């Protein structure tokens, strides 16, 4: 069509002049500073500096590796949660879904005497199914994601414990660490890799890999474009032909996949036994990481890199307090204060750049 409509432009002179006349010079630094995740990056640097100054053990490479590990366990899920949030929804069931996957893997493998990988495959199907259900109910009923995922959260929380008790007779699963495939699963999901003299947990590498992949999807693929559009204005996106419902369901299933992955880490890191009552409250940490990293709760804005930084801020704070030896009773206070510090700095940086 565009070929048949060949018309002259009204002379490039006029357009060019607008740019020249009205657009102030903008240094590359300033452009960099205007990115959504940069505020949180500076927040991270400040938090890092604080702990580097006050906590002597924080300065060691081994400690840094622990900090990275703590960040990665939140951060892997934060990648998926950030994608979902950019797509305009959020998932309160993400925290317990991780535990559900771990429980399912252990129970499927043990009860049916399967190879761990087979159990894991079944658990993956379950995790994707939960994600699909969340998304499907959401798009079918048009209910807010808060309500849909809150009910899933409550139901999974109940199911985790009730089904585990029903199947194993106790609140934790039977030990599967001696089953076939456990060793290889452990190598994939919960091993350590020596990097320059320090053991780096493999989840850290996965975390960075997933973040890179998600960033690529978001910035350079059609689906990524759709995610931004669906979160930014679902009505408009639908009007130009974006399959809004499929994108939303897909995002919930992505969270399901990552929950499965995190669940596999949990199970293998815990030597093949999973407690059924855990995971509650983690969903807020994932959301926090994404929001600290610059994702808008209302959707349509944010980056995965930001969520990674958000998780890192949380990991640093949580572990840094330990390294600094601050009082346990104050731990939540410090976490809250650090969070506020990080986001206020974030906001300040953003305001400064937009003021130029």
């Amino acid at each position, binding site marked *: 069509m565009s070929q048949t409509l060949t018309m002259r432009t009204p002379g490039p002179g006029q357009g060019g002049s607008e740019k020249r006349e009205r657009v102030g010079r903008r240094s590359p630094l300033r452009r960099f500073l205007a990115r959504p995740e940069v505020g949180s990056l500076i927040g991270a640097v400040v938090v890092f500096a604080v702990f580097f100054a006050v906590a002597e053990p924080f300065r060691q490479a081994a400690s840094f590796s622990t900090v990275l590990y703590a960040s990665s366990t939140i951060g892997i899920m934060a990648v998926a949660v950030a994608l979902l949030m950019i797509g305009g929804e959020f998932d309160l069931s993400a925290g317990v879904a991780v535990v559900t996957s771990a429980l399912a893997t252990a129970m499927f493998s043990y009860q049916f005497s399967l190879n761990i990988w087979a159990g894991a495959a079944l658990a993956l199907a379950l995790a994707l199914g939960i994600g699909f259900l969340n998304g499907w109910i959401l798009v079918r009923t048009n209910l807010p994601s808060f309500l849909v995922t809150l009910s899933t959260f409550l139901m999974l929380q109940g199911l985790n414990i009730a089904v585990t008790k029903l199947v194993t007779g106790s609140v934790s699963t039977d030990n599967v660490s001696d089953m076939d495939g456990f060793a290889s699963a452990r190598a994939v999901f919960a091993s350590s890799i020596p990097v320059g003299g320090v053991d780096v947990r493999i989840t850290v590498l996965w975390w960075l890999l997933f973040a890179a992949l998600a960033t690529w999807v978001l910035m350079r693929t059609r689906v990524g474009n759709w995610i931004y559009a669906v979160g930014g204005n679902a009505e408009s996106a639908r009007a130009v032909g974006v399959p809004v419902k499929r994108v939303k369901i897909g995002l919930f299933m992505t969270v399901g996949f990552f929950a499965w992955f995190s669940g596999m880490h949990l199970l293998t890191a815990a030597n093949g036994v999973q407690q059924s009552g855990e995971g509650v409250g983690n969903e807020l940490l994932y959301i926090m990481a994404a929001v600290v990293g610059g994702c808008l709760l209302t959707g349509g804005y944010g980056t995965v890199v930001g969520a990674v930084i958000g998780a890192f801020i949380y990991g640093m704070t949580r572990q840094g307090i*330990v390294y600094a030896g601050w009082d346990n009773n104050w731990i939540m206070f410090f976490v809250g204060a650090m969070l506020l510090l990080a986001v206020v700095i974030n906001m300040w940086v953003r305001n400064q750049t937009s003021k130029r």
Partner: protein
Amino acid sequence: ASACSSSGGRQEETATGADTPELTIAMITHEAPGDTFWDLVRAGAEDAAAKSGVTLEYFSDPEAARQATLIQAAVDKGVDGIAITLAKPDALQGAIDNAAAAGIPVVGFNAGIDHWQDAGLIEYFGTDETLAGEAFGERLDEVGAEKALCVIQEQGHVALETRCDSLGEAFEGESETLYVDGANMPEVRSGITAKLQEDADVDYVVTLGAPFAMTALDAVDDAGSDASVATFDTNADLVGAIEDGLVEWAVDQQPYLQGYLAVDGLWLYGTNGNVSGGGSEPVLTGPNFIDQDNIDSVAAYAENGTR
């Protein structure tokens, strides 16, 4: 009551311990912050630390994976000893191994009586939730209870579930479990009330923490039931309630003692190579019944926040 604490024994005791090497000990538990039980554990640990000139660092997280990370952090810091609660042994194993590899002694307390040896801990101080639950059940039989309601304030909590399960096994009457949300006292109250309204046969309400026993008393009132209340664990208020005959008894595992012994055990190991229980037997701190007969011996200490 606290008037003399400013000139208290801490400085003097620190002075007495000055000739031993300065140790740093990390205590890492599965406490969900804000529980009176752990107050007592910490009080014991701090007293022991003060007495021995030990620098004590206390951290907690109810989530197993994060408790493991806390232990890892203590290893990174290179502390001289680590005391842990072994509520979820499998998840902590990796971190415990790392501690061993770094040559840091680790002792267990409060939870994990069945696992501490396998996990490679050098000693264990505490009770056995199974034993405590069974003792509780037997006591219920003694008083002729017919139906007990075991109130769990945190669903899925290993130690709490164990208490109710073993209570149920030892108890000859009927026992039932009720889950309530411990972070929401009004709901604990209305939940117990509702259960008592639903089931008039319940004649004993068993709570698994001292504050919940106090709330259960109100709920029994609300429901117009004549059920009695008994509980695990104590705090100052509960001691008063036992004195007044409102709560029948409390099963005490002496949390102060657990905390004290765990730190002291590490100190002894670090300064003198002693191993309590010889490395094969746990050091039991309970179960111990507190009721109107022996309450007087406890009340004074409860006032100090050490029982």
